[in-house]
């Protein structure tokens, strides 16, 4: 099956999000709040990288170069996934926001016209149910602890809501991807569902948030955020030692 340009953009945006989330989560290796959580969080990072590889397989025969050596403007990652989140509370809140979104994206390809994508979605969902449970367990305990915990979540959340909303800015050609049956929902539809799920969690945790009116404006995901440069450099650090090497 030849993918339409819109389908390619849609899959690339998903794959790049998974890649950046995996890379960002993995930066917590050895730094997690306790050993067991360190392992769990890095296991989640590995799962996301696995999803990225599986999605990149639709787009390239040269995985490493494609994943690591494109020009910044050729990536379609969301600004949420590019955020460094160097504080544990930020990393947790982003993990929750992103995995709520990821589940909806996999759900939207459960009957995709792209061969094998529905099976991939089913496999990913088995991992994602654990990711959501993990995020929910952690945040609900912090939220139910005391006002300081709720304030910490609110602060982290408000700092990244504009970027989170940008997850739902459509890529170029999204209408084509929907018409081709790659996905059965537009970004706007998924964004509405995501807003509902996130709001439901927040209400349960007793956290009130002022939603920003608009997202950051990623121009169909073609513009990278400021923190991307540092992430991009670190992703390329090893492959650039010898780009011709076979790993």
């Amino acid at each position, binding site marked *: 099956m030849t993918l339409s340009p819109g389908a390619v953009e849609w899959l690339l945006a998903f794959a790049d999000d998974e890649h950046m989330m995996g890379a960002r989560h993995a930066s917590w290796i050895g730094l997690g709040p*306790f050993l*067991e*959580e360190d392992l*769990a969080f890095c*296991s989640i990072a590995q799962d996301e990288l696995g999803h990225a590889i599986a999605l990149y397989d639709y787009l390239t025969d040269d995985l490493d170069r494609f994943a690591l050596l494109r020009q910044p403007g050729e990536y379609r990652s969301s600004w949420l996934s590019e955020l460094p989140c160097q504080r544990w509370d930020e990393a947790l809140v982003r993990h929750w926001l992103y995995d709520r979104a990821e589940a909806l994206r996999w759900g939207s390809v459960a009957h995709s016209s792209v061969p094998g994508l529905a099976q991939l979605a089913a496999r990913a969902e088995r991992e994602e149910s654990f990711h959501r*449970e*993990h995020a929910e*367990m*952690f945040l609900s*305990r912090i939220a139910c602890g005391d006002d300081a915990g709720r304030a910490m979540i609110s602060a982290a959340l408000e700092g990244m809501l504009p970027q989170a909303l940008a997850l739902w800015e459509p890529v170029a050609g999204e209408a084509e991807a929907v018409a081709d049956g790659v996905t059965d929902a537009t970004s706007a539809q998924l964004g509405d569902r995501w807003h509902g799920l996130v709001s439901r969690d927040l209400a349960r945790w007793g956290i009130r948030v002022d939603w920003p009116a608009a997202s950051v404006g990623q121009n169909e995901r073609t513009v990278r955020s400021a923190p991307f440069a540092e992430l991009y450099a670190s992703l390329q650090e090893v492959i650039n030692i010898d780009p011709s090497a076979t790993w």
Partner: protein
Amino acid sequence: MKTFEVFLKKDGKDEFRHAGSMQAPDAQMAIPLAREVYARRAEGDLMWLVDRDNLIVADPGLLAPNADKGHRHNDGKRVADHRKAQRAEVDGAAE
């Protein structure tokens, strides 16, 4: 934080075996964390967690007197040594 002892069982006739110990904030969180620590390579199909606070622990002093009762160790080595010596004796007499 609480400490949990983790037991895993592979499907079939194998018994539950102690996989190790771990820490978690509470019992509910311990289950998924235990999976990541001890069963992420499918080391088991069934998993038990026991809160260490619920273990009934014997005094090592109770077990110590049994450490020097060699006659309770039926490892066959003494019998084998005895028979080997007897064979050597018979062979020696025949020559």
